[in-house]
């Protein structure tokens, strides 16, 4: 049984459905990942790719689990930078009037640990800001 490299958690005052939409629809992801568009049909086994603003496939992975609005998992590899893919899990649990998102990242290559560990807390905060106020947060870094 493998052990996640990171586990992040955030509570957001929203519904599981809106959280799910933010995690799977192009708009939020494009805003967050610097203009990259996600290309996938979200069918288990299908490719998940991101297309850079210049039109190239720059991340490549596969849909592993797609169980709306509770559990999403896919693998991804940053092409030309990572030698193998890592695995992401997003778990959504209702908690009273809020939703708890648990993000687990498995099997990250050592050189990428630092960058990834900086990206996810910012991702969580801006997701919260977007879902609770409708605005993405201006982030430094």
């Amino acid at each position, binding site marked *: 049984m493998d*052990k996640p490299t990171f*586990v*992040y958690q955030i509570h957001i*005052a929203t519904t599981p459905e809106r959280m799910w939409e933010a995690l799977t629809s192009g708009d939020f992801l494009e805003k967050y990942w610097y203009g990259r568009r996600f290309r996938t049909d979200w069918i288990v086994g299908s490719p998940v790719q991101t297309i850079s603003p210049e039109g190239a496939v720059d991340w490549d992975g596969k849909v592993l689990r797609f169980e709306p609005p509770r559990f999403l998992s896919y693998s991804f590899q940053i092409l030309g930078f990572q030698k193998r893919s890592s695995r992401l899990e997003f778990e959504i649990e209702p908690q009273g009037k809020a939703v708890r998102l648990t993000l687990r990242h498995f099997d990250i290559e050592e050189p990428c640990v630092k960058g990834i560990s900086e990206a996810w807390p910012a991702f*969580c*905060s801006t997701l919260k800001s977007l879902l609770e106020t409708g605005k993405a947060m201006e*982030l430094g870094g």
Partner: protein
Amino acid sequence: MKGRDDDRVFAALADPSRRLLLDRLFAENGLTLGNLCERMKMSRQAVSKHLAILERARLVTTHWRGREKLHYLNPVPIHQVQARWIAKFETDRLDLLSDLKTRLERKS
């Protein structure tokens, strides 16, 4: 709800033993209670009590691997504190200052 969450974060961080536990998880994520007790000058009960407070403040999250409960540092609440008071354009300069402090204070 929001205010109470913040109170929990600051109260949890106000204790040096709990900050030490976070340091330990920062150095090595995904440790069991047993792992955390090693090299800590605290009883197992004390570590377990502090972990519960950190978990309630959501500074620590857990993951079950079979029967093993693994503890992870969850920096998300700290990131939100940062995002609240540090403007986008200040981040680079603050990083520079932190680096300078680390370099100057390093024991040679």
